[in-house]
């Protein structure tokens, strides 16, 4: 005999108790500490900070631990916390030209002021599983003393020669949009688009960026420069009348240099695709700059023929917190609607059978 299922509350709380148990795993294995995650799973922490849009390593580590290592779940935890924080204001634009650089490479010039620095990269490692790293003590790397030479951005150097378009016509004193405070209204300006891309899903942007390389909205890109390091965040305090430093954050910046044949008004010159992400997130920054450039098709008068150039398509689907919520909501009960469909299908089948019987 059917009795309407009661006990949703008990089921939920039992499920969560089991989740906590599975998260902790075998009690004989020492529990992870947050500092271990911050120090040894740093790139996962960086991704949770970047797509979570909150620069706080310990919170991101906590989110990763709580999410059992599920990155999108961790990003979601960080976002849901971030949204509750009060806004004091907006920082001054960070000056990536003044970055304390740990890695800096250019694919367009063999040598350049400030030099090339590989930094802590997976590039040129042989991807051979190395059992020796488990529990191994790693010797201190040799660190060269920082050179006083300033490393100007490659795009700035190209810009001085007029070969590179200027850095956009955004009014430096103008208000910057904030997609966390205003609903998106398509078509977007580039500031909002870059915000959306910066918190967009790495996998999604990677696939879209890749598609532009394979001919779906080709943009002839060169890595003008990738730089990773720390930049100062400054905040204007109205009461003081000057900017104070809030501290330094690590960011990855990618400037993609793209061909542009010019138009009736603009001479042939290189155009930019831009990527800027919290932490060390080179793949994301590169993918972001490819997609940013592709999305400038409208602005540059290019034909919009490929998915990566379609702003509404890209930005509406780039947020993995939104995407995962809506995809996963399909597991919520839908039996009311399904009943309606069941009823319709049965009725239509009955009519179909009746018609066949007549013939």
């Amino acid at each position, binding site marked *: 005999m059917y*009795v309407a299922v009661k006990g949703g509350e008990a089921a939920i709380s039992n499920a969560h108790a089991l989740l906590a148990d599975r998260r902790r795993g075998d009690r004989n294995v020492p529990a992870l500490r947050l500092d271990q995650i911050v120090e040894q799973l740093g790139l996962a922490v960086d991704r949770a900070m970047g797509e979570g849009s909150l620069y706080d390593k310990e919170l991101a580590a906590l989110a990763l631990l709580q999410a059992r290592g599920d990155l999108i779940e961790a990003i979601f935890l960080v976002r849901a916390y971030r949204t509750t924080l009060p806004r004091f204001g907006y920082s001054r634009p960070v000056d990536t030209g003044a970055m304390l650089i740990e890695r800096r490479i250019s694919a367009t010039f063999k040598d350049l002021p400030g030099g090339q620095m590989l930094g802590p990269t997976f590039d040129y490692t042989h991807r051979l599983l190395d059992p020796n790293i488990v529990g191994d003590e790693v010797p201190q790397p040799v660190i060269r003393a920082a050179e006083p030479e300033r490393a100007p951005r490659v795009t700035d150097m190209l810009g001085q020669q007029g070969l590179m378009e200027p850095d956009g016509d955004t009014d430096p004193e103008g208000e910057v949009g904030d997609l966390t405070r205003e609903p998106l209204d398509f078509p977007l300006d580039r500031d909002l688009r870059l915000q959306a891309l910066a918190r967009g899903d790495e996998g999604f942007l990677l696939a879209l960026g890749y598609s532009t390389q394979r001919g779906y909205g080709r943009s002839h890109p060169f890595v003008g420069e990738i730089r990773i390091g720390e930049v100062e965040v400054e905040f204007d305090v109205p009461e003081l009348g000057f900017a104070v430093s809030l501290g330094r954050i690590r960011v990855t910046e990618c400037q993609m240099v793209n061909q542009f044949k010019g138009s009736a008004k603009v001479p042939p010159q290189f155009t930019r695709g831009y990527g800027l992400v919290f932490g060390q997130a080179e793949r994301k920054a590169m993918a972001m700059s490819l997609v940013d450039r592709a999305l400038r098709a409208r602005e540059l008068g290019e034909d919009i023929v490929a998915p990566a150039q379609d702003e509404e398509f890209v930005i509406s689907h780039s947020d993995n917190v939104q995407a995962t919520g809506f995809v996963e*909501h399909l597991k919520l009960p839908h039996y009311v609607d399904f009943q309606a469909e069941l009823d319709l299908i049965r009725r239509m089948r009955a009519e179909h059978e009746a018609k066949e019987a007549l013939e």
Partner: protein
Amino acid sequence: MTALPQYNFAYLDEQTKRMIRRAILKAIAIPGYQVPFSSREMPMPYGWGTGGVQVTASIIGPDDVLKVIDQGADDTTNAVSIRAFFAKVAQVQTTTHTAEASIIQTRHRIPEKPLTEGQVLVYQVPIPEPLRFLEPRETETRKMHALEEYGLMHVKLYEDIARHGRIATTYAYPVKVEGRYVMDPSPTPKFDNPKMHMSPALQLFGAGREHRIYAVPPYTEVVSLDFEDHPFEIQHFAEPCALCGATEVYLDEVILDDRGGHMFVCSDTDNCEERRQAGHVGSLGTGREAAE
């Protein structure tokens, strides 16, 4: 470690609530029009009722009595979760009884018991745009609404008739509000559409992921789209509820075995329980249940 803050009453900060209330007021002033609002990340996933939760959080006060239903039932897991959320962050009284609630948050159903003046029905909406599956672009659908260009929707309904002999839309059946905006009633079965028409209750719709709020003020005309020769009609069930014997209510089918055995029971669990307590018994119901 960053100190965790105390959460505000009903979770959202007052600035955010004010922003959402403004959107709600605008929505009430333009019935059926989708008002963009700056949706927040909530501590539950997008697509799981964040729009409804934000609307409820913005209008709820300490004296409110909240009912939450999903698929018509108070005890579905997500309804339990949302009710527990508000019990925790707003310490409000909750109920399962439709008549006792001042705010009812719902997913996919409108309660069977007619709503009254002063009640607010908050719908969780996944896709607020009724034209979305005809035209995926926001920039285009916005224009179509502005120009009252709803021909495409009628063509879609007509194609249904040409192909299937009837309008094959069974839920999220489009309505026209106060003779102006075509609106998505959220994925409620079309059975519930007539309940929206001239309802004494205020109906608010929140779509969190899609950043939209819309509303049907009390006593507003809500007409389901149809044709003269194919008038709108709701679902009818061949048998009454097996537990309480109710007819003219929406029923869920419950599979009893793997040989095709099934029964139909009320989707609105509160209505069903109240009827059974009042002594109504269906074909498979027992008197004993009424005492439980």
